[in-house]
């Protein structure tokens, strides 16, 4: 009986180990848009696109045991105004031994899409974000959403 229990425990451990790759995100992005963001003062719309800093967010992938992985990205939670899109791109390679994809802006939807792929643990992958379609014709106020990164 005791032996069988150890086998069950080991199996459980292996199952957990198989989905062990984890992703963490450092940083958020909040932008305040005002009169200085008009294209050319009175009579013009807000400039577009509006970009974050090139390393606004850093992603770290760990517990990979050297295995390959892919991060998908999507928008979750609250919606942005209908004409506003949010896109992300990779601006750095971090400390990765192997990293591909994500160098061009990808517009986020509510379905996950492949973003970057790599091999093994990877620290501080730089991420930049871009808002398009913010306009003076939309009411003033706050709009926000969540960007969800999933490692597989």
């Amino acid at each position, binding site marked *: 009986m005791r032996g069988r*229990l150890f086998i069950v*425990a080991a199996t459980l451990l292996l199952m*957990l180990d198989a989905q062990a790759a*984890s992703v963490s995100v450092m940083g958020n992005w909040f932008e305040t848009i005002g009169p200085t963001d008009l294209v050319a003062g*009175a009579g013009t719309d807000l400039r577009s696109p509006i970009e974050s800093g090139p390393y606004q967010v850093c992603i770290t992938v760990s517990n990979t045991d050297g295995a390959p992985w892919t991060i998908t990205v999507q928008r979750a939670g609250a919606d942005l105004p209908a004409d506003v899109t949010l896109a992300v791109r990779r601006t750095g390679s971090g400390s990765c031994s192997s990293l591909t994809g994500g160098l061009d802006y990808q517009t986020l939807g509510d379905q996950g899409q492949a973003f970057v792929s790599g091999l093994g643990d990877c620290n501080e992958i730089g991420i930049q974000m871009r808002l398009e379609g913010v306009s003076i*014709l939309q*009411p003033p106020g706050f709009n926000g959403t969540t960007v*969800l990164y999933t490692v597989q």
Partner: protein
Amino acid sequence: MRTNTTMKLTTLTAAIGLAMGSGVYAVDTFEAGQDVGYQVDEIALISVSADVTGLAITTTVDGLAGAAPADDSDTSSTWAITVNKAAGKKVTALLGAAMPAHTLLSVELAAPSTGASKGKVGLNTRDTGVAVAAIDVVDSIEPVYQNGMQVEYTLSADVEAGVITATTAHVTYTVADL
């Protein structure tokens, strides 16, 4: 029997504890979220193009003696506006100082696509020249950005004004809540 049950529970607890304690229990971390947001402040900006020069009354309405002085107008300047608040805005005009007595400075602003012009509006009292309070020139403005809209100034005078040397009038335009 009781001993076996205790052993089973102890073993399972130890196994689960080992699994969680080893740091590989990653169900909560294979996803990570990041907040993104933006705040758009209320914007209400107005501008006018270059100053108007050369308004001058030099003749009568029919060019003959016995008629009233002829108005002079200028349409060389334009205005622009950017507004993002949906509650409605208006533009007022205010003359900075009195005009000479028996003269009248009027202005008419063409409306943006979401507003309504008030037409030609006098900025001072003709008899005394004293400036009137800020007066509406465009109202019912909803969110809009538009430029190149015409501003027309008109200078009128009565003969009682006499001969007036060149003078400058300063007009201030303000975006205000309705």
